[in-house]
């Protein structure tokens, strides 16, 4: 927890950038698959499900690493509202990374669809229920769009730190050495 380090650890940076690619792909696949009737539909769905499970596993690992190692401090001269926004956004990211795959999985269970990953049928998370399915489906869709919006703001903020403030915040998570 003692965040004396000026940068995130190499493991944390690797997880961040791998997940950035996975999650952005996931969001594009999600909105793409529900808007097509072409054979791509099945291909995209067949990527969406295992990728969701992969993101859930990575998110849990990442959360454990974050709790164990913490995060570098934000620059002292950063305005307080900006710091608050940064902290809150991190909570939102962890919540969404973990909740969205679970909502998707739960939604399929509530619809009584078999969830088959790599030839194995996963256990059903929830009972078959129309109301539950509707609740989870709406939440999955709404929060996924929120997630994309959050990523857009996060990206703009990261570039703002990198190109305008030049305060080391971007460097703390930069993929390079």
């Amino acid at each position: 927890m003692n965040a004396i380090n000026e940068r995130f650890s190499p493991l944390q940076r690797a997880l961040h950038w791998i997940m950035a690619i996975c999650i952005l792909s996931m969001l594009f696949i999600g909105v793409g698959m529900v808007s097509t009737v072409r054979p791509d539909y099945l291909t995209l769905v067949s990527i969406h499900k295992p990728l969701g499970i992969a993101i859930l596993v990575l998110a849990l690992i990442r959360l454990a690493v974050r709790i164990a190692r913490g995060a570098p401090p934000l620059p002292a001269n950063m305005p307080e509202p900006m710091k608050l926004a940064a902290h809150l956004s991190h909570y939102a990211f962890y919540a969404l990374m973990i909740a969205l795959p679970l909502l998707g999985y739960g939604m399929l269970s509530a619809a009584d669809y078999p969830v088959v990953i790599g030839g194995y049928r996963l256990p059903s998370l929830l009972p078959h229920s129309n109301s539950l399915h509707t609740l989870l489906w709406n939440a999955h869709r709404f929060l996924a769009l929120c997630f994309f919006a959050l990523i857009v703001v996060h990206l703009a903020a990261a570039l703002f730190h990198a190109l305008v403030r030049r305060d080391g915040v971007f460097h703390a998570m930069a993929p390079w050495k």
Partner: protein
Amino acid sequence: MPDKSASPRSPLPALILIAAIVAVLVAAFAYTAGWLTPNRLTPAKIVGSLAPPGGAVPGFRRNHAKGICFSGDFESNGSGAAISKARMFMPGTYPVTGRFNLATPDPKASDAMARVRGLSLRIVMPDGSEWRSAMIDAPFFPVATPQAFFDLQRALANKSDPESMQKFAAAHPEIAAFGAWAGSAPWTASYADERYNSLNSFVFTNAEGQDQTVRWSFVPAAKPETLTPDELKQKGANFLDAEITQRVQGAPQRWAMVVTVANPGDPTADPSKAWPEDRHTVEVGTLVVKAIEPEPDGPCRDLNFDPTVLPSGMRVSDDPFPAARSAAYSVSFNRRTAEDKAYPHTPSQGAQQ
């Protein structure tokens, strides 16, 4: 200590760059979601095109809205194992949940008016895998592509152009065969009298890894009783549900599942074209319908008979329909489950008669 004011550089170019990157990302997302391409054929559009003039009936399937549930078994004779390693083709008995239905978006449609009848199945295997299928009694599909199906719905609904169907038929000559079938095929007295066909092709893979493209049919054991137009009219609007309920109470009803294997060069991607009669067929087992359950609160009501829910040993072929059907069925399912309150969950007086 770095001080922003020490940098004389204007932040404007950087801000413009950031705005441009954000704009490109958002535009790419909107494009992928179809928000910038109103002409894209989406599952929601296909489902919307099926709605009757008064709008879709809330709480019901958007097509094949009228139906009745059943439970039973699939008795596999083991012959199917030569063409597919799916667990349900090993000898044994597997539980089935199914639904007889009519191809209409109106759950109150008259049985005497619905030309196409359907059979949907879910077979659950001991390893947890499932096979779902939704078939109809037509011997081939009216059109060759999902886009043509959408165009057909629009032509049928087009009231402003009296020649809309003629124009459609000119652009899609394959529909003539379906029209001939619909006009000449006998109407039968029972769901149990119908042969139900997959129409779409799928690829079966056996334990040796050999792939074969197939279609399948459920062929009734009952001897079909055909109705004259007058007899059909006299039967009334809801005779099929009452008939199948009574018939199954008397004795379980059976269908043979017959798998037809394509020859090289057969039109596997086009369900509007039947394959020649002499193709190799394998009778793989028997569907036994043991109990009929009214749809309100019946076991089939909240199931999506998505034809792409396939066990290992079966997969989709180059036929474009199963993907389009899966996408559209999902939209139909999402809509009707969200309208759960609108569905009459206890049988109405009319349905009990």
